[in-house]
C-alpha cells in the first residue's frame, strides 16, 4: 500500500514539475508529505516564484493560485488517464499571459484526459486549443448551440 501511494505520488510530482518548469521557468515548487516517513500525513504545497519568497499555495495571488491548482489537478488525474475534466470558467482570474500558459498546459493534457471547458469570448487561447468549439447563443427564449470541429474549420479555410 505504501509502495502504491509513493509510486503514484512520485508520478504526480514529476508531471507537476514538468508543467511547472514550462510555465514558470526559474521558479521552484515543493510538493511534500508533511512527514516523509508517514504516507498518511498531509500534503504540503509550497511555491517559490522567481524573486519571491517561498510561500504556501494559500498565500499566493488569485492568478497564481489558479495556475498552480489547475496544474496540480491535471497532474493528479493524468495518472489514471480515465478522468474527464469539466471546467467552468476556471480562467476567470488569469491575466492574458497566464490564460495562454494554462491553455498550453490544458492542450498538453488531452493525451491523458478528455477536457470540456467553458470560457468567455476574448479568452482566445482557450478557444484556439479546442478540437471542438461549442458556440452557445441565446435567441427567442432558447439556447442555440453549434458544434464546430477544428478539422472542419481548417478544411473550410483550405477550400
Amino acid at each position, binding site marked *: 500500500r505504501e509502495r502504491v*501511494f509513493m509510486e*503514484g*505520488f512520485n508520478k*504526480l510530482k514529476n508531471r507537476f514539475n514538468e508543467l511547472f518548469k514550462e510555465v514558470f521557468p526559474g521558479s521552484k515548487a515543493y510538493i511534500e508529505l*508533511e512527514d516523509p516517513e508517514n504516507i498518511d*500525513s*498531509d*500534503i504540503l*504545497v509550497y511555491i517559490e516564484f522567481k524573486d519571491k519568497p517561498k510561500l504556501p*499555495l*494559500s498565500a*499566493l495571488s*488569485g492568478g497564481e*493560485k*489558479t495556475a*498552480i*491548482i489547475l496544474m*496540480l*489537478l491535471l497532474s*493528479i*488525474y493524468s*495518472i*489514471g488517464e*480515465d*478522468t*474527464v*475534466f*469539466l*471546467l*467552468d*470558467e*476556471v480562467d*476567470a*482570474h488569469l491575466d492574458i499571459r497566464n490564460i495562454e500558459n494554462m491553455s498550453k498546459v*490544458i*492542450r498538453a493534457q*488531452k493525451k491523458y484526459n*478528455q*477536457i*470540456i*471547458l*467553458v*470560457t*468567455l*469570448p476574448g479568452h482566445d487561447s*482557450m478557444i484556439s*486549443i*479546442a*478540437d*471542438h*468549439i*461549442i*458556440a*452557445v*447563443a*441565446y435567441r427567442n427564449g*432558447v*439556447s442555440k*448551440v453549434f*458544434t464546430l470541429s477544428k478539422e472542419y474549420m481548417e478544411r473550410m479555410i483550405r477550400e
Partner: protein
Amino acid sequence: PYLKKVEIKNYKTHRNTRIVFTDGINSIVGPNGVGKSNIIEAIIFALGERSLKTFRASSYNDLVYNNRKDIDLSVTLYIVDKDGNEHKFKRVYSPKKGGHKYRYNGKRVSRGSYIINLMKLGGEGFKYVYIQQGDILNKANATPRDIKNLVDDAL
C-alpha cells in the same frame, strides 16, 4: 472512457440541444447568460447528481424549461469506453409524474443500477472532476489535509 455526445431536452434554457464532443479539448464559448453552465449542469444531472444547490435550484421543477409542468426534462449521455463500445445513459425528470426515471442502453433501470453501470463502465468506470463556476479559488484554498484526501481518492 470519454463523453461522445449529449442530448438535452428542456433543461433550463436548453429546449432541444445536441452536442458532439471529441476525446480531446472541447471549448464551450459564448457571452453571459446564454446557457454555457447549463450544459455542464445537464451533464452532471445525467451523471446522477442530486444536490439541488449544484443546480442553483431549490426544487427539480426549477430545472425544467421555463418552469413548465407539462413537459419532461431529459438528458442523454453517450459514453464510449476504452474498448470503443458506446453506452447510453438517460435520466428523465417528469414534473407531471413527479419523479425521476433512469434508462441504460434504452432499458428502464433503477437509480442504483444506473449509478453502478456508470461506475463499472467497460471495467474502469466513468470518472470526472467538476470545477463549478467561481469555485477554482476555493479549490486553491484547500488545506494540506484536503490535498492528501484528493490524492488518495485519485490514486
